[in-house]
């Protein structure tokens, strides 16, 4: 159908129009939320590429975001501040700054290098063992950032990062991430990747280089995580090791699973829910009078709601909101034309 073919272009135009409208009519608070949303989508989609499509359940994603973020920040950091705040670097680095986009890309490359170094030995581990090993990576990176004070400013955090991020860059890179992942997934590489995920023995016997396929997917995933980290640093103007701890791991995994592993649409939805929903709950945490009722202060209400949503989602719809299905114009139109029939005889909901 021709509508299907033009859908991405249409979506892109809607996005651009939406961003333009947002920039000119929303206040800085909403813009920051949108910025965080874009970054979260990038992080979730890239994680899903390795975990959902590649079957590599990695808990090390925050580590790559941290590496990429700090690398980009150190490069764009103002020369007047560098020698006093992060004196550990060689002189040529201390006296130069790099423009924003190259710095981001270099950050992505740094993360990729780390992914290759770590992935090569570790990716052969299965399932939970990989999860624990990558969790170890997150801890190691975090501990290193805290203690290598001359390079990262340690636990205080690297503040004073120039404010280069804006919605255009963030959503620009987000679209790039989605596009790259989408094209890869629907290519020969993507098929090989899914074959490795589903049955690596069979894949190997079909001629797929399992180790290499995994490593490539893992590295690409890390690359975009690194860029996301850089965008984050330049949005909040600060990076701290505390941002990349167990909490970050949990949120990342939650966004991916809630939306649906193995579905780009799912990742987007998961990120949207986890980024936007808390903002509605936050005003209620303070307590006070709402609609005539006096509510006590409910500290941690947002966390409790998120936890309940997550538990409920696992109980009721473990495959996530989107499951493994992608958004499809055709499917939507088809479904609206046949309200009563089942679509092509398959059960509407899969339970396993």
């Amino acid at each position, binding site marked *: 159908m021709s509508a299907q073919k033009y859908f991405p272009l249409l979506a892109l135009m809607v996005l651009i129009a939406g961003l333009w409208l947002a920039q000119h009519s929303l206040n800085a608070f909403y813009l920051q939320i949108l910025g965080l949303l874009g970054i979260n989508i990038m992080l979730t989609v890239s994680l899903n590429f390795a975990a959902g499509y590649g079957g590599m359940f990695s808990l090390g994603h925050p580590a790559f975001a941290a590496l990429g973020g700090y690398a980009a920040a150190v490069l764009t950091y103002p020369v007047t501040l560098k020698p006093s705040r992060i004196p550990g670097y060689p002189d040529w680095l201390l006296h130069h700054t790099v423009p924003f986009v190259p710095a981001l890309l270099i950050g992505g490359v740094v993360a990729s290098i780390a992914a290759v170094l770590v992935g090569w030995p570790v990716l052969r581990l299965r399932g939970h063992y990989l999860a624990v090993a990558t969790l170890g990576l997150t801890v190691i990176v975090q501990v290193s950032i805290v203690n290598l004070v001359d390079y990262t400013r340690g636990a205080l955090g690297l503040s004073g990062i120039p*404010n280069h991020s804006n919605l255009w860059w963030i959503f620009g890179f987000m679209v790039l991430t989605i596009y790259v992942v989408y094209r890869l997934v629907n290519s020969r590489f993507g098929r090989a990747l899914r074959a490795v995920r589903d049955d690596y023995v069979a894949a190997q016997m079909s001629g797929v280089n399992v180790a290499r396929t995994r490593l490539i997917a893992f590295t690409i995933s890390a690359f975009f995580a690194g860029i996301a980290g850089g965008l984050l640093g330049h949005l909040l103007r600060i990076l701290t090791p505390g941002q990349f701890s167990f909490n970050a791991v949990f949120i990342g995994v939650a966004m991916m699973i809630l939306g649906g592993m193995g579905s780009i649409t799912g990742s987007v939805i998961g990120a949207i829910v986890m980024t936007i929903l808390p903002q509605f709950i936050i005003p209620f945490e303070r307590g006070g009078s709402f609609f005539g009722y006096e509510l006590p202060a409910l500290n941690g209400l947002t966390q409790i709601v998120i936890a309940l949503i997550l538990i409920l989602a696992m109980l009721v719809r473990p495959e996530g909101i989107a499951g493994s299905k992608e958004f499809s114009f055709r499917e939507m139109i088809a479904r609206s034309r046949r309200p009563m029939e089942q679509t092509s005889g398959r059960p509407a909901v899969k339970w396993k």
Partner: protein
Amino acid sequence: MRNVFGKTALSLAIGLTAMVGGAFAAEPIKLGSIYSLTGSYAVIEDPALKGAKLAVKEINAGGGIKGRTIQLIQYDGKSTLADIANAAQRLVHEDQVIAIVGVADSGFYLASAPIAQDAGIPYLDTGGTVPNLPEQVGEFAHMMPFGDDYQAYVAAEFAQKDLGAKSAFILRDGDTDYTRAIAGFFKEKFTKLGGKIVDESSYHTGDTDYSAHVTKIRSLNPQPDVIYAAMNPGDDATFVRQAREGGITLPIIGGDAFDNPDLVKNAGAKNTKDVYFTTHMAMTQDGGAVTKFINAYKAEYGVPPENAFAGLGYDSVYLMAEAMKRAKDLTSKDINDAIFTITDFNGVTGKANFSNPKRAPDKEVTLIAVKDGKFELVGNRKP
């Protein structure tokens, strides 16, 4: 006809009443606050918020400021950087507050202050103690407590002059900037005064087992004269107990984290012999304003102030209130200018002068010794 006329007259009447009534019903002054009530910083920021709320209550009970009440709009920072930055954005752009108090961590402050600075809203840091914190942000950034350097320098001088210590061992939480900073400043001053740091040891935030460090100290030959414990609130009592029960009788000097009523309770009274610390306020019961504060806090919340941050939160609001009183008009700019005119602020956390163009207050450090399970004031000093 009559209906329409009646309705119009009624609405006109209501409208007029509302306008007239509105002119008399004063709009509250919106003061924003960002304190983390969940996550690892809740231990210190929850009491800070309680102190702040108590101050707001007292001020409003006394008639408010220029006839208007203060409305505290608080957001939970959740000990998470993104949430703190969001909270700052909300306060500035959604709730449109005219001033902000908040956070007890320098990193958190640095994440949220640029937002207030860009909007020209004065933002008072309640507990972050990096010495040049406001300088890193801009002219609308201020800080309530003294810097880490003040606190640690006083401790080093005390160790040398009062305790006669020539050598020291430093134990610090390696994961937080605050503890690394006071440890670093102590080392700097102690060695400058001619002392020697025998050894150092770091632990991770969340550790409760100090046995390895205690053994390390005991194994030193010769033994240091004093131990400097750069710790976060809650860890202090645990360490003191383990140290004493592990056989260490050396004097222990701590930072303001030691300033909490549970120190003696949790460490055990006999274990707190020879324990000293520097802090923002003396929670001894024989000062005038401090006693009043402690009693008011107890009356409001049922427990005495949990740590010095309760006092810092309390003073933060009072400082802002004082600035609001002195401001020509209740605008952010006037309030900010007014802060610099406050030279003799008398808070529960001590006397302070806020006229420093670098916006770090000139404040005394309170030195406390624990004797017979009670806090005893050694003195108020400046380095």
